[in-house]
């Protein structure tokens, strides 16, 4: 079992597994070889959320020279800021306005379409199953058996007030 040739194939399979392993596993094995764009979740983050009006950090942290001048002007009286400067300061601090965050996206159409598509696909799967997978139905589904079952339920007076037997006319022997 542990012959030389067998060891060779075992090692080959191990090497192939190492090469084909997922990206994150490879990143863990070789730090710094790849540039990953993952955000550092341990630092304060910025995000546009309706229920969080003031995110943990401003949107723009690297300020150009003009932006830094604007920030210095902001430390003074705000009545001296023009309307455009106020808007520029807002855009430095925030990415989207509330109106922009709340803008409708038409995403629901994709969602509903996807739901209906997969329901349809499932229907086809079930159809195939009923033909190729299901065993024959039990004898209790035969029409004769069902008729005998109905007669027995009427004989027993199942639901005589408002239910099953109340719909049967016992004098005439037919449904009401």
């Amino acid at each position, binding site marked *: 079992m542990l012959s030389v040739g067998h060891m060779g194939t075992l090692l080959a399979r191990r090497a192939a597994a190492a090469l084909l392993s997922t990206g994150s596993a490879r990143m863990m094995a070789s730090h710094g070889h790849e540039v990953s764009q993952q955000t550092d979740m341990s630092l304060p983050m910025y995000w546009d959320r309706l229920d969080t009006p003031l995110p943990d950090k401003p949107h723009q942290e690297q300020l150009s020279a003009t932006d830094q001048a604007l920030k210095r002007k902001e430390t003074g009286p705000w009545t001296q800021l023009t309307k455009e400067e106020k808007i520029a300061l807002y855009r430095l601090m925030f990415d989207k306005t509330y109106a922009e965050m709340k803008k409708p996206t038409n995403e629901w159409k994709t969602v509903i379409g996807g739901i209906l598509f997969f329901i349809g696909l499932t229907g086809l799967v079930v159809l195939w199953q009923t033909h190729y997978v299901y065993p024959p139905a039990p004898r209790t589904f035969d029409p004769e058996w069902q008729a005998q079952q109905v007669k027995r339920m009427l004989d027993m007076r199942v639901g005589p*007030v408002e239910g099953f037997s109340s719909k049967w006319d016992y004098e005439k022997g037919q449904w009401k």
Partner: protein
Amino acid sequence: MSLPKPVMRGLLGKRLRFHLPIAFTLSVIAAVAFKYAVTEPRKQAYADFYKQYDAMKEFSAMREAGVFESVRPSGE
């Protein structure tokens, strides 16, 4: 650029003062509708059924049909 200051307080109270009476009224209407659409007709149906109910006749009919195990039809 000078918008009016939005309302900052009393928002829950305002919502409750609007929605609670509506909720209460709709609940009462639902209960009354259920009573008069379901329970009263059902009580009447049971009363009518048992007004003309002959227990011995029904028992004999069921016995002849052969649904009992303790007593067989009179022919056997």
